């Protein structure tokens, strides 16, 4: 469908931010936004290949019972599409190869990490090199954080942004990389797109509660080398209107919430490159 931006928002099995994520996609200008249950995907009733942007919203996939999004990552790795026998994972690889975008938020980012969708260095999709683990505080927290945006990152979602203020709502958000070489490659390649930072968004920080979970290097979001596959712990879809901001009754703010920019960037990119 030339010119029509098509988005698939995943739902079911404990995903619970699909409503506002789908709303964000529509508000950002997507033409079609389908909220699709995981089972519908695995039964072949919908296929990611028919879309430009796959959103993996926040939630508690399988209750985060084996660790955040772990059980779902395991399912996605092994699942076959019911009616074709095709491996779901192969569908995903084709989708990525064909240039599709993936946007994982919170539990969606945890899923991407455990599936090895990010950072996928040297195109190694499927190799888990990072994880999001239990917050140093040992507890779930809902709080807003200042994020420094890496302007040198290839990330298409954060284009034109320098800083952003968003809520985190998680108990397992501490970013850990497999080893130092992964971290240094992430840095070198500019894949660390977002970092928890001081209030001016100048410096990444390890200071609690500015850094709410103890993430190494203050990492809050990373992308793959194409910049099209991007995951972050904070919730852009929770800040679509100024009245979502915790201080909107005391500050002058633009009507549009800063979180919408991520979605707009993705849709602009799709219009320019994929439609």
């Amino acid at each position, binding site marked *: 469908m030339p010119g029509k931006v098509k988005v698939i928002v995943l*739902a*079911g099995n404990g995903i619970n931010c699909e409503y506002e994520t789908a*709303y964000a996609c529509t508000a950002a200008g997507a033409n079609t936004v389908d909220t699709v249950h995981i089972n519908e995907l695995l039964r072949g009733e919908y296929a990611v290949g028919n879309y430009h942007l796959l959103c993996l919203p926040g*939630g*508690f996939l399988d209750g985060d019972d084996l660790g955040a999004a772990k059980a779902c990552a*395991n399912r996605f790795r092994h699942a076959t599409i019911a009616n074709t026998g095709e491996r779901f994972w192969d569908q995903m690889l084709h989708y990525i190869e064909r240039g599709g975008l993936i946007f994982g938020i919170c539990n969606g980012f945890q899923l991407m990490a455990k599936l090895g969708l990010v950072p996928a260095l040297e195109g190694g999709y499927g190799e888990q090199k990072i994880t999001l*683990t239990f917050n140093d505080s040992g507890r779930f927290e809902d709080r807003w954080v200042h994020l420094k945006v890496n302007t040198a990152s290839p990330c298409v979602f954060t284009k034109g942004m320098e800083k952003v203020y968003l809520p985190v*709502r998680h108990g397992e958000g501490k970013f850990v990389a497999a080893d130092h070489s992964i971290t240094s490659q992430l840095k070198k390649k500019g894949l660390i797109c977002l970092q928890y930072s001081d209030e001016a968004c100048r410096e990444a920080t390890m200071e609690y509660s500015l850094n709410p979970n103890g993430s190494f290097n203050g990492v809050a979001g990373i992308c793959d080398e194409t910049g099209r596959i991007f995951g972050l712990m904070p919730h852009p879809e*929770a800040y679509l209107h100024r009245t979502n901001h915790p201080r909107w009754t005391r500050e002058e703010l633009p009507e549009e919430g800063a979180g919408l920019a991520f979605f707009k960037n993705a849709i602009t990119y799709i219009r320019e490159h994929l439609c």
Partner: protein
Amino acid sequence: MPHRIEVAIKDDLRDSLGEKTAARMVNDLGFSVQSVRTIESYTIDTTLDKQQLELVARDAYCDPITQVWSVDRPLAKTFDWVIEVGFLPGVTDNVGRTAREALEASLSIHLKEDEKVYTSHQYLIQGDLSRTEVEQIATQLLGNPLINRFEIKSKEEWDPQKGFGPLVPKVTGLKGGEVERFDLEITDEKLIALSRERLLALSLEEMQAVQAYLKDTAIKQKRKEIGIGEGITDVELEAIAQTWSEHCKHKIFQARITYIDADGKEEVIEGLFNTYIKGSTETIRRALGKKDPCLSVFTDNAGVVAFNDQWSLAFKVETHNTPSALDPYGGALTGIVGVNRDPFGTGKGAKLIFNTDVFCFAPPDWPGPLPERVLHPKRIFEGVREGVEHGGNKSGIPTVNGSIVFDERYVGKPLVYCGTCGIMPRTIKGEPSHIKEAHPGDVVVMVGGRIGKDGIHGATFSSEELHEESPTSAVQIGDPITQKRMTDFLLRARDRGLYTAITDNGAGGLSSSVGEMAKEPGGCEIHLERAPLKYPGLDPWEILVSESQERMTLAVAPDKIDALFELASKMDVEATEVGRFTDSGVFHCLWHGETVAYLAMEFFHEGAPRMDLVARWQPPRPEEPVVDPPHDLTATLEGMLSRLNICSKESVVRQYDHEVQGGSTIKPLVGENADGPGDAAVIRSLLDSYKGIVVSHGICPRYSDIDTYPMMACAIDEAVRNAVAVGGDPARMVGLDNFCWPDPVQSEKTPDGEYKLAQLVRANKALYDYTIAYQCPCISGKDSMKNDFMAGEVKISVPPTVLFSVLGTIDDVRKAVTMDCKAPGDLVYVVGQTYEEMGGSEYFAMHGSIGNQVPQVRAEQAKEIYHKLHTAIMDGLIASCHDCSDGGMGVALAESAFAGGFGMEVDLRNVPAEGIVRDDYLLFSESQSRFVVTVNPAKKDAFLAIMKGITLGEIGRVPKGKAFIVTGLKGKKVIQGDIYKLKVAWQKPLGV
């Protein structure tokens, strides 16, 4: 042969769960512990080869970046003591269920029904501890003997090859399928003994009613024909006990009460519920006429009101007190996911949009000894908090409003109020969504979780006081994910019109849900053997009354049944046909074709004899204490801010997701640093609309010590004024009442029953008077009437407590205001009159007294304040607005100041007051219907013009600095504080 997979965090990484647990061993139990690390263990009850096990461990159970795993080999090393905590047989093991699914996915196999995965946790402790101390850690911190098993080994006892070995907590040895019959032609003593032995909680009169029913010739004849026999079956007896339980039937609220007031004047009340609660709602609805927002009140699982032309809201608040006393985590979790099913099971079903929670606990720093089987208040606090966290967060429902009340009398039974609101389109497939109707011939379908022995007798059990031998089968653990899967499925089924009625399986299980739904068609036929079980071996009566969670019952037209089952299977939700609705007039249950229950619907629902009770009001007269005026009011203010009932609850609120679903507008924490106490929540559930929902509550049990009439009035006023404070429209509010009372029925165990019942009557009278005065009809509610704890001779009763919740609207959320002062130079007003009403105040409580001048609610003045203030808010004239409640104006001023990050300079001589000559009383009197408001000087005239006729005083201004200065009645500076110091005092007790 069972196998065991263990997963541990890599040695060089922090184990935050271990660290948190270690800190609690030190802080809560006072033990000497250096460190704790944890291991997760999965016991797999099936035969797999090594390669398969390793694949599962590596792929499904272990995070390769942070964890290591082992198969059939213990990982534990370097510890002084190791404790393993697992579940007892039959206890819900959510992680085990997911682990089983993950195993199947990894290996592409399907396990047999009884091949399960069981989880347990190991805690490796380094510290100088005795075995007794370690046992204490196990049972008092890590687990609960009611649901957990514990294994303890010291370093010396540990065999590094064997470890604990796989231990399978499988339910075995149950025979099941038994139906017992009872001859009720027995003496009264034996009737009551039967009720007691079977935990039926039926009174002698009720047992006699059953006896009389069986004697009826026509009934006898019918029972003979159907072949059930002359005696009553256990299935029937249990079903009656559930349906007639206080929990389900609200017998005390239905009772005929002779109320004798202090002057000896008698009055007969034909049911508190009908007279006062339903009575006031009907009066208000008539008065509102076309403006009446109510669509469905008191008839369904939740009350339904119109939100706008297209959408309606269904709101319900429940309590889950007894289960939370026994197992705080499981009890509260079940409480929240249980109340979720109320709006979900209302009308055709509503999508859940927010939760509320209010807890009443004993102080967490409880120093003294505790009665047998009472858990430490700190443990109850943390367990309940975590249960609600998991229940709300994992279900994707924001927890937007709540509070915590502390009083020593909640030590025996904590009160755990959980509320949930849902939204639904006003019509679905052309039919009004708030109406449901099962038809004869519709299929009875049970959806969601399976049935086990868990939660048997929950309804009858909560209808009795808690005692040392209370049954533990009432304890269960909720499963938010099974429920989430079910609700995802049901919302789709609803929108496709696949069912005609829905209700939840809560108290009383299938017997209540099917029994209730069968009222409309006029009967039902349930085949109990068809119900899916968690494990085999249940008796038919257990299947009927089990309260196993995450289940809904549907009525499905026969031509829709295939479509429903297909959708269910597609979405991995179990749906089972268990019977039919009929018009036979009979509640009919069968077990493999044999009739095991055959009760006339009318008797089943209406046969309970009505109670006749006496209430006698003797006002207590606590003495007005002599409190010396404090020398240093600054320190006194700090002391007040550190009171448990006033201090910051941020540490709890932060752990609740209050923003999911994207509509968060006024959050529970507000202000410069998002740490001030918001008065009420505002959410915008329809993201393409600016119309918002306002949620607030009031609760003031301390006032019950003087008189429950003003207590109720104050609770209503507090809820309404909180809603007004953020911008809620006082002309369009509805309420929910949740009564939690000590047993008010006079008996040997309750010699003061008549007084407690009089307290109940008085609270109801106030509810009637004030909901009518405020035109705020109750749309739903609940009562919990046996909140006592008995241990031998010791009885601990909760203070009579009512939670009044308000659901309101705001036309444009962009006009909402918060409580934090906004800018230097703004003028500070106190709106409303202050009286010397110190009775039941936090200030007197700080001095160990009650007093007798309890706050009165002057409804006419209050209404005028609310309407005018609302106009001022809508006109954008208010910078900040904070209600005065616990701790009065002094506390409100301080909170408004430090939340805004500015100081305050106020002069008490300008506070409109009557009869107060003391600075401390003026600051801390809890007179109702008052606000602290700040206004930009440029808007002063417009503000005052709107507020004309209202009692208010311009008492000062917001300065540039951080100083909090109060000039006293004698013109001297009586408080010279610093907002940061005040905030520290406020945040210290429970942390942030």
